[in-house]
């Protein structure tokens, strides 16, 4: 073999210019599009390679399962700051549950600061452009929230919202993939809202005999079957399938997915939303 360097011929240079030029032009053309309103697929968080070898207590398994649920379903939820409804004050409605925080209005002293909300609500994205949330009477989304109220069901204390931010994942299948018949006697994950995002509590749901309520199209599950289930919480199974939404009333109830589907369709038609 010779030691003389192989000279670059004109063909080699033309090939280089052609390939790089075509790549650059195609890239510029492709970059004109915007990424569609679905996102990186939601998958289970990767665990450390050694995690599988470590001895774990049963509660560690539960912790991992709950963390898994939060990471999977958080993109399907919207945290909404709630404030007392100015129009509803003095009309005999239930007073808004105030957060016991003496510094609640401290942030609003500064004219530019966002006022501290009275409560946080957690909305479930039932479609890519719609979310459903339980809001106690007298509370409405804050003007600083990233949602627009498109429908209201005062009897059931539910709001149909249009989030201003695009969904992190295509959320249309959250209801279709939901558990239709909940058997009970199992742990569930109850998601509720905080100022920094959704949080989760494990709740054991015992005997869950469904009850008919004339306000709802499908039978409900009494929330007292799992004592910490508070109105507004979203209930998921430990494998991240939607079970239902807890609503208030005389007795908190878990509204199953079929009833929510029916309600959303009704509210959407009422407000002229496309199906």
């Amino acid at each position, binding site marked *: 073999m010779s030691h003389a360097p192989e000279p670059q011929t004109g063909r*080699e240079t033309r090939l280089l210019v052609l390939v790089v030029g075509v*790549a650059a032009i195609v890239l510029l053309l492709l970059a004109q599009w*915007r990424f569609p309103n679905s*996102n990186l697929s939601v998958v289970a968080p*990767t665990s*450390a390679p050694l995690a599988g070898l470590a001895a774990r207590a049963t509660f560690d398994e539960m912790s991992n399962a709950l963390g898994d649920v939060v990471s999977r379903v958080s993109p399907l939820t919207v945290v909404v700051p709630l404030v007392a409804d100015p129009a509803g004050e003095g009309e005999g409605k239930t007073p808004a549950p105030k957060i016991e925080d003496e510094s609640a209005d401290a942030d609003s002293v500064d004219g530019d600061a966002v006022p501290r909300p009275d409560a946080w609500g957690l909305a479930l994205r039932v479609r890519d452009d719609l979310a459903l949330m339980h809001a106690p009477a007298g509370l409405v989304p804050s003007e600083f929230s990233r949602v627009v109220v498109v429908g209201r069901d005062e009897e059931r204390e539910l709001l149909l919202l249009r989030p201003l931010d695009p969904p*992190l994942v295509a959320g249309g299948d959250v209801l279709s993939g939901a558990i239709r018949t909940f058997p009970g006697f199992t742990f569930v994950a109850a998601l509720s809202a905080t100022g920094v995002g959704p949080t989760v509590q494990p709740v054991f749901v015992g005997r869950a005999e469904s009850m008919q309520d004339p306000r709802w199209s499908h039978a409900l599950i009494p929330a007292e079957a799992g004592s910490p289930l508070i109105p507004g919480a979203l209930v998921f199974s430990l494998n991240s399938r939607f079970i239902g939404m807890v609503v208030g009333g005389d007795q908190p109830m878990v509204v199953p997915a079929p009833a929510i589907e029916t309600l959303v369709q009704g509210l959407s038609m009422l407000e002229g939303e496309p199906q």
Partner: protein
Amino acid sequence: MRDVPPDVRRRELGGPDPIDRRLRQSGPPSPLAPIWSLLMTRSALGMTPALTPAVMFLSVGFVMGPGLLGWISPVLLDRLSLAVTIALAVLGVLVGVALGRELRHSAGLLLGASMESAVTTVMVGGSAMFFISRTGMPIDASLIGFALALGLCASSSSATSADPDSEPAAAIATRVADLDDVLPIALAVPGFAILAMSTGANLWVMALAPAAIGAGVGVIGWLLFERAESGPERVVFVLGALSLAGGAAAYLHVSPLPVGLVAGGLWTLLPGRVDRVVENDLRRVQHPVVVLLLVTAGASAMFSVAAVWLLPPYLLFRLAGKVAGAWIAAPRLDVRSSDLAAFLMPPGVLAVAFALNFAQMLPAGSGQALLATVAFGTAAFELFALFVVPQWGTRGRG
């Protein structure tokens, strides 16, 4: 350029191992032997073999994975994570051994191969950064870290379409393909550090741990391997050392590839025959390691909008990067740049190894997108080499 003994060429995918040799020696010829030999003949009917390991086992893994048949469940993939980490350390050792030997023969070849891989890394990483920021694609990780990871995955080459003994250009391309993995493996160290910044990890630990672990494992192996009293005892020592390398890297959340690179390089450069000992023992696990990595990657890769979105710039700029890198490096290597670029098109198992490694470190969403992009890109380039590379190469040589 000086001729290199055949044993120097590592051929991470195509090299014969004891299983190959045993298969070739065994029994009477099968009735299917003519068809098999036709498939395995280089450039038969103007095409290189279709059954490259990357195409075969990525497809097998994809079909068996959770996305289709579900025979490989997410739980099993999770359990395989540690085995993958050790397999990555094994690949790092193979590259380190090749590096140690080539350094003795030709540092210029390493420089040329590093230039080629650096150009590919920059072009793919830069185009990915531009594309992601312009299209508003959401990434749940550092954009620089993600783009660097994609670029490093793209820079790997295996030259599996080339028979290293067929012609001088193929011989050089094979050695370049062996050595162009060194710079990306070294760059994986800062890449991991960038990705770990958001987790609050100690950057000094991230930067220094791979070299420290690799040096420790290298010294342990150097002291132990040649003192083993029997073959099985030596195999236990070798596998134990590699498990230590992979396990320590996993514990500290650093890449096992540079750990293995340092250990393999040390075993070659230190006095004695430790590198030969390790090489002989690793030959037994070479094919299982490749199959494990490819099947795991195929099973873990899932179609997503993000992966489909990233695939076109990845394919285009890996092609452009290889052509540009070869154009820059070829004058130093006594080879036509078009020939070199053609032979370097197949990414091989190291691209998949890089992707699996970064997917372990990245947040789940972007890790999945990276792995799927690289897995599908690897299969696409193997097929691209099947149809285009021979014609491209021969036209230039004619």
